[in-house]
């Protein structure tokens, strides 16, 4: 599968069973993915993944490291990666239901190779969608913080400079434009200067 830039998507496989991971690796390669490395599970996995910087990870569903890899994007803002699970249980309800609902990446052992490609594609799409949501949440959070700081700075200006709230607000916006600084930075400056005197 080809990335926007024309390169193949780089995949890391995590499995203890080398025979099985070789088979799946072949299936992925046949479908146009580049399997850059096969890793053994364990705590040092994160460091290895960080070194390789793959585009996605395919991991055995029986590995406890699933929680670790999936959560990288939840606890930090760097190296978020789509994770797809593969499993030996062909008749597992989870795999059937997950594939039917099209929301999680699960590959069963006997999945038809063409299916592998579409599962990976769905997993990547869903991952990007989730990342977009997360970015939006971060932005909202920082907007909220800016808002709080501007409010506080305004209050301080009203108290100290004897202005109306409206005038204080306009003064902050003007300073932001004149000094070419963000509203948050200007508010922070006002708070650190005027806040000290209280």
């Amino acid at each position, binding site marked *: 599968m080809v990335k926007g830039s024309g390169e193949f998507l780089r995949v890391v496989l995590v499995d203890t069973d080398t025979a099985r991971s070789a088979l799946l690796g072949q299936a992925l390669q046949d479908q146009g993915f580049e399997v850059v490395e096969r890793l053994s599970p*364990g*705590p*040092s996995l*994160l*460091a290895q993944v960080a070194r390789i910087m793959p585009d996605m990870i395919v991991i055995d*569903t*029986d*590995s*406890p*490291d*699933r*929680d*670790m890899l*999936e*959560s*990288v994007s*939840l*606890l*930090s803002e760097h190296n978020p990666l789509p994770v797809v699970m593969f499993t030996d249980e062909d008749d*597992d*309800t*989870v795999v059937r*239901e*997950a594939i039917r*609902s099209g*929301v*999680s990446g699960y590959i069963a052992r006997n999945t038809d190779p063409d299916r592998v490609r579409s599962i990976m594609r769905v997993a990547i799409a869903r991952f990007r969608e*989730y990342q977009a949501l997360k970015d939006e*949440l*971060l932005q*909202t*959070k920082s907007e*909220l913080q800016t808002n709080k700081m501007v409010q506080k700075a305004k209050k301080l200006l009203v108290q100290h400079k004897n202005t109306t709230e409206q005038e204080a607000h306009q003064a902050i916006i003007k300073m932001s434009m004149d000094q070419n600084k963000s509203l948050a930075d200007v508010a922070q400056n006002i708070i650190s200067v005027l806040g000290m005197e209280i």
Partner: protein
Amino acid sequence: MLDKIKVGFSPLTDSAPLIVAKEEGFFAQEGLDVTLRKEVSWANIRDKLVYGEFDAAHMLAPMLMATTLGLGGVKKPLLTAYSFGLNGNAVSVSNVLYEAMVACEPRLIECPEKTASVLRQVVEARKEQSKAKLRFAVVFPFSMHYYLLNHWLQTAGVDLNEDVEVLVVPPSRVVQALDEGVIDGYCVGEPWNTHAVKRQVGVTIITGYEIWNNAPEKVLAVTEEWAKNNSDIHERMVWALYQASQWIDQAENRPALISYLAMEKYVNAPISSIENALSGQVCNPVCKTCRSVPNFSLPFKHQANFPWQSHAEWILQQMQALGQVSTDFDIKAVVAATYRTDLYRKVLAAHSVSVPSGNSKSEGEHAVPWLSEGYLLGEDLFL
């Protein structure tokens, strides 16, 4: 004929009510044939519950809300009518970090209340020396471990994002990760703190109980849909678990309990590592003297199995404060939908056990057990 149900669990000491209900026959008495399925990851437990492979699951309380809100995975309304008890977590650090902390405070092991400020001194010293941030592990992003670790650090002004690095390591792997130097410390449930100490890989410096007295931990999770279609089975399951929790609380049953938990198909940890959490002992590095924390884990007493909505509310507030979820939804509505005190009350009333009439209790106000409507409730102070 017995009703067949499948329940997923994570191999931790607090999964005990499921194991006891199965082994001591409380499930069978309720006409339930329960298959317990051990899972290696919380994400697996969540997915298998959501997709109907499991009827019910031993789940991190915050995961119940995260899944209901669709955070980090599939969105599916879940609910609980039963808490697996209170407390049971602790923070442990590597021997190297312990040495650095003891250099600041020689009596560290006897002063859990000082651990966060001592850690801050170490964090600041490392900053000056341009050393890498300390790395702490929790078991999942939506877990009491994460929120308790955050609260503990905050008491000393250590910022979870700025001053340290937090990553996820599954419970069964934390001791290895500490040993290999991948992490400097962790907040995890028993037996994995005691196990690290007994293997001389790390030192337990504060228990979850000392961060928030009688904090929530795991719950019995079911999907809203399943609960609606199987209300009778759900109620019988809750009653069997209630009796199992009562059984666990009786000291004379402890040897049997420990031998069940140690079994390979359940927690699969050495008996010596399991014993301590149950008897409220926190081992120190030389293992000669243990620090006594009687409520290290609280399986039954003080209404420990009641799904207090004030617990759920605190969890959702933490999620918001840490930026895991937006602030524009109605916390109370999510709390009422996920923490079903009405179902718990209905089950217990049917067996003539009376329960508090309130759905919430005060948190952070009581330093000693206190009476509410004639029920003795546990202390609830924060560090």
